[in-house]
């Protein structure tokens, strides 16, 4: 029975893209195609683009992605806890408080380190 449910999801993964590719293919077949060199430039509000965009960029954003990773991994552990919570004793609550405290320590650390500031 459970496998049966996953068949539906599997079919969705297979047929879903087809539903989306059809209009794009239709457009490719129906739409006009008259490329010119100016049309094919990068669009920067009419100014001629200087160089390509694939350059080095400031790393502020990257730090947030790292902080996210810490939280996301911990969240994976919280799902089974929430699922079984009704069946667990008071002990489960204290376990989670300690677990969340560890998370908060990580958050406070990054906060104090200034990683959350936008410089």
């Amino acid at each position, binding site marked *: 029975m459970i496998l049966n449910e996953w*068949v539906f*999801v599997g*079919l969705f993964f297979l047929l879903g893209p087809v539903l989306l590719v059809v209009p794009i293919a239709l*457009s490719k077949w129906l739409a006009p195609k008259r490329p010119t060199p100016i049309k094919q430039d990068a669009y*920067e*509000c009419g100014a001629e683009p200087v160089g390509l965009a694939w350059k080095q960029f400031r790393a502020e954003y990257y730090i*947030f992605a790292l902080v996210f990773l810490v939280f996301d991994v911990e969240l994976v552990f919280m799902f089974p806890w929430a699922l079984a919570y009704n069946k667990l004793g008071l002990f489960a609550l204290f376990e989670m408080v300690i677990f969340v405290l560890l998370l908060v320590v990580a958050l406070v650390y990054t906060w104090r380190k200034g990683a959350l500031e936008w410089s």
Partner: protein
Amino acid sequence: MTGFLQDIGLSYELAVLVAKALGVAVVGAFGLLWTLLGIWIERKVAARFQDRVGPNRVGPFGLLQSIADAVKIILKEDIMNRHVDRWPYNLAPILSTLSVMLIWAVIPFTAAWVGADLNVGVLYLVAVGSLGTVAVIMAGWSSNNKYALISAFRAVAQLISYEVPMVISLLVPVMLAGSLSVQAIVKSQHIAYLFAVPMTVLIFLISGQAENGRGPFDLLEAESEIVAGFHIEYSGMKFGMFYVGEFLHAFTLSVLTALLFLGGWQGPLAEKIIPLGFVYLLLKSVFVYFVLIWVRMTLPRVRIDHLLNFNWKFLVPLSLINLLVVAFLWKLMPDTDQINSFADALGPTLVLFLANVVMFAGVAWWLREWARRDREHIEARRAVVAEPAEATAAAGD
């Protein structure tokens, strides 16, 4: 359905497969077609907020406007930057819409109509939903355009950050229902969870809106700063795909809110007359959708550092506190694992509601204090800046 297919000579396995494939086509096509109506609703409501009429030429009340737009966009030329990275560039619009469409696989439309009642439903929709972020990054990077690249970097910061409070707030209905299956969560709501945990709903809606990249959080597209963000280099149907994906995402968020917090298809007689549940679900979803448009049309865009501060220094700690408070009270109350009727649910709902009122009051007080300190801080700085100027003026005399 399966019986009919077996009658025309298919084996049982094949009949099940064909029936499921038809189900996929129906659900997927419904999602895409509903978007056309959703766009019309959004444009009409947005127009009202701005004291305009909105689309009113094509068909009655402009109802066919979206169809006309769809036809137009298919006939548009697909202009492509010659420097793009082709594979990710072409896959991104499909993945963007697909990530939202796949969520519809686990949505229970009524007591009986559900595509796949997965026992890990909530986990599935978190997993599938976050594929959209990858699509945005793919589009921004492969476009080889500076604006698109800035947008992709913002996507990394914003979409990824706001996923944390969203997932934490999703834990609350899972905990209350004791199940990850969306259908089971709907069935466990003898009283809609909105009344028990309003704080969670608020956190879910705010972070969901940010995940969607609209409303006050539309930094990804910010027309006035980075033109259109990650889809600047897209035109024709590929742009249309992003557009459909965004609207479908907004509506899917409303449907999820309706399912997880507003009781989904539940309503008077919904168990007996099955299609009625579908009507209830749509009504609740459209209501949430209206609230989302309301927020979007009312608030101005926030700055990126404010956006990230708001998330990491306010929303994430708040959602953790909220989770622990709900968990603590839930454990204090007896027999919370045997709630089978309205009467059973009444007590716990009241207790949780009161706790939420206290939490709301605490948050309001804290925000006021914070705003006051911030104001004092700014005024103190202003005084420091003003003084030397006066001193110079005095020396000049």
